[in-house]
């Protein structure tokens, strides 16, 4: 078992199913998946183990910024993905790994843990990711708890 470079935890008043949907459904992700500057993103895949997934910009360009493979898919509790630049999809030695653990707690609260590992070799990716996750998770919490899309999505997308 390797040691993750980052572990992010957030507690959200919602259900595991809604967290799972927010991670995997493009129509939901594009409303909150904003990690710093630039447009919102969404995750596209059939979410079966072994399948490819793509992290796409939710604007007209649909540009793919991150790709990877679905390693483990156990809705609504656990999703494990590899994470790579599009040009490095075929070289799995360059992929890092992201694990989403979705655990229901007492009182209608869900604990979402995002661990990112195998990033140590890639300082640039590590820097960009460590800035992005806190914002994405904070936005996800706001979105699921208030039910509203973030009002600055449009301005950031430009």
């Amino acid at each position, binding site marked *: 078992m390797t040691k993750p470079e980052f*572990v992010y935890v957030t507690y959200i008043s919602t259900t595991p199913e809604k967290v799972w949907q927010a991670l995997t459904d493009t129509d939901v992700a594009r409303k909150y998946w904003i990690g710093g500057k630039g447009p919102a993103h969404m995750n596209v895949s059939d979410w079966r183990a072994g399948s490819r997934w793509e992290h796409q910009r939710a604007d007209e360009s649909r540009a793919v910024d991150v790709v990877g493979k679905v390693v483990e898919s156990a809705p609504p509790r656990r999703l494990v993905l590899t994470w790579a630049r599009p040009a490095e999809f075929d070289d799995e030695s360059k992929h890092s790994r992201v694990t989403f653990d979705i655990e229901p707690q007492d009182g*209608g*609260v869900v604990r979402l843990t995002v661990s990112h590992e195998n990033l140590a070799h890639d300082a640039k990716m590590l820097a960009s990711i460590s800035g992005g996750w806190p914002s994405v998770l904070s936005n996800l919490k706001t979105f699921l708890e208030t039910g509203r899309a973030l009002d600055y999505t449009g301005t950031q997308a430009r």
Partner: protein
Amino acid sequence: MPTKSLPIDRVFKALADPNRRRLLDLLHEENGQTLTSLCDEIDMTRQAVTQHLQLLEEPNLVAVVWRGREKLHYLNPVPLYEIYERWIEKFERSRLTVLRDLKKSLETEGNDKT
């Protein structure tokens, strides 16, 4: 463990202590440290470090991962980001809105004169 009520009071309380801020700085320098490695870098008893870590874990500023028998501590910046969002970012946003409105009104004024 944080409850569903806003744990923001406990976040600020946890941040109010310089030793606890130092522990967060140490985790920022090297994430995923054990209690022993943190104790090596800070001039406090093991017991005091344990207590401070507990006060950082409660408001979710430190996340814990078990690797075998090792307890690893991670700096969890999500509550800090929520503070940033609430107290800093929204003020920047309103300033940007003011600038946008100013531009709009100036441009409209210009149109009126022509």
